[in-house]
């Protein structure tokens, strides 16, 4: 469904001045020419194309840079947006974040960054106006990932819940291991979220696999890599919360429910026990109930 192109959403001018040099277009195979290693983050989602243009503003070398990405799925446009969503949230697109001259927003399959490089001031009004103009041209809206709905709200730190797929995303959010024991990849849906509960700053990592068998195998692999010094448990036990207190005095809680793995990290012991259970409850409400209804409907 390529009914719109990223380059068509770029404005023809900003304050009467055209892009210099002319707008450029990048695909998965040459994205690195624009952003070098930064391309890895975009390629970790279902990236299709990027249109970028720089518009001079004012009398000096100030400029507004506009980057418009078209992703394969709206969930992935949301995913890139959610990786660094901190800031104020103007009503632009489906979610937007603004701070210090940078506006980021998503709408449908589009993820947009507008950056004002100005030594005079942030040109906030200009950036937001451009954002509204571009958002209005995006001819669709899209769905957020359903997995985001199973995050408990209590204690969740605002703007610190990221949807992703691959190990490269997890590694830059929270390093667990230099291999990929969880078997993350384009086929996995994952969420990383930060909490503040009492004196602790626990994190939740959720990974949804294609099947229960895949999830069980990934959990067993992870436990072997991450907890090799602790007594192993049988696969029959992996649907109860396993809590281990680690060297730094903080607890980790592990739980599998159906094809979902739930990890609670850097937590107090009781939170490591209770937070995964709450996620499991929300997961069943969100997914299992509806799945049953779908079967009945058919």
């Amino acid at each position, binding site marked *: 469904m390529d009914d719109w192109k990223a380059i068509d959403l770029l404005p023809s001018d900003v304050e009467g001045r055209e892009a210099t040099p002319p707008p450029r277009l990048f695909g998965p195979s040459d994205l690195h020419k624009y952003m070098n*290693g930064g391309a890895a983050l975009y390629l970790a989602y279902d990236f299709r194309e990027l249109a970028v243009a720089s518009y001079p503003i004012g009398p000096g070398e100030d400029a507004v840079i506009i980057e418009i990405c078209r992703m394969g799925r709206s969930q992935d446009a949301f995913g890139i947006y959610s990786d660094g969503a901190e800031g104020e949230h103007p009503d632009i697109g489906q979610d937007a974040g603004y701070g*210090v001259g940078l506006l980021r927003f998503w709408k449908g399959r589009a993820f947009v960054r507008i950056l004002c490089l100005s030594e005079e001031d942030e040109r906030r009004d200009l950036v937001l106006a451009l954002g509204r103009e571009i958002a209005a041209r995006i001819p669709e809206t899209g769905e957020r990932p359903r997995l985001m709905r199973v995050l408990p709200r209590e204690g969740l730190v605002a703007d610190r819940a990221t949807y992703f797929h691959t190990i490269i995303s997890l590694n830059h959010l929270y390093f667990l*291991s230099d291999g990929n024991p969880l078997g993350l990849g384009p086929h996995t849906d994952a969420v990383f979220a930060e909490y503040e509960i009492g004196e602790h700053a626990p994190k939740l990592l959720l990974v949804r696999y294609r099947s229960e068998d895949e999830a069980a195998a990934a959990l067993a*692999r992870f436990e072997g*890599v991450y907890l090799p010094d602790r007594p192993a448990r049988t696969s029959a036990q992996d649907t109860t919360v396993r809590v281990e207190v680690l060297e730094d005095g903080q607890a980790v809680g592990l739980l599998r429910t159906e094809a979902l793995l739930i990890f609670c990290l850097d937590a107090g012991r009781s939170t490591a026990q209770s937070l995964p259970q709450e996620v499991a409850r929300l997961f069943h409400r969100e997914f299992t109930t509806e799945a049953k209804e779908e079967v009945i409907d058919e």
Partner: protein
Amino acid sequence: MNEKRELTRRDFMRGTAYAGMAIALGMAPATAAPSRQPTKSRVVVIRDAKVLDDKGKVQTEVLARMLTDGLKAVAGTATAQEAWKRYFKPDDKVTIKSNVMITPTRPELVRAIMEGIATAGVPIEEIRVWDRNRGGKGPDQTDPKTWQWQPGFDANSVSNAVHEATALVNIPGLKNHMVSGLGAALKNWAGAVTNIHPRYTKAEDLSFLIHADSGADIGVLNAIPAIRKKCRLIVVEALRPLCNGGPMVDPRYVWPYKGLVIGTDPVAVDSVCLKILQGRRDQMRGRSWPLSPPPKHVAIADTKYKLGTADLSKIEIVRLGWEENAFV
């Protein structure tokens, strides 16, 4: 089943992996530090609150003074000219490895370095600056917008700019990098080779495998004999570093550190750089916020490639100038 033992966060917590770096990242207690060894590498961190004005514009005179004062401290000389002469000879063909991608090195720093090297007798018009496959020559071509030179690459994907020089200067900008944790001295040589597409992760697809495994083997670039032998000096531009979200510019995480990090040991320089970024991240969050992924390429450049020392207890850090929130 698990043939190659994987490195985990717990290894850092216990201090059993890259202990010095784990401490710098706040992931291991200081008691995990190895015993103090004789000092081997000197790294100078020099800062001046006036190097940027209130609009963020570089004050060139202040920057030039920071550079010469810092260099004197690295070289241990009484004058700046003596220091420049320690590293460069009049018949050297000097090429400066800048960075033009996303968070570019400032042309003002390139010019200050050219002028300094010229005091050692190298004709300033002959000093080159380059990144990737574009470059310029002389003080009128410090800005990438003016670059016309295309050095090309040899059969091994290494830039001819490296081969044509007798002396190299490495001047990266300091930033967090989402693939490798840190983008500074070691990683800057990525712009000296071609074929570094980050999508490929198999060795056969890539002349230099530097984006796989969190960039663990970035040191391989610095171990290229021509680079290792010719790189005389490292000046990391830390005027406005990026502590999160890099390499893409995210102004929310850029801050006016107003510093230069200068040395000759790329591993030691990067070890100090990661401590600065880590300090800023912890300050922003008000609690430990480790660089992620851990920039293990710094430690591996020490242990595997023997390019320098990553152990902060073996690095002599000389702090000069503005001290507030120096983080080292």
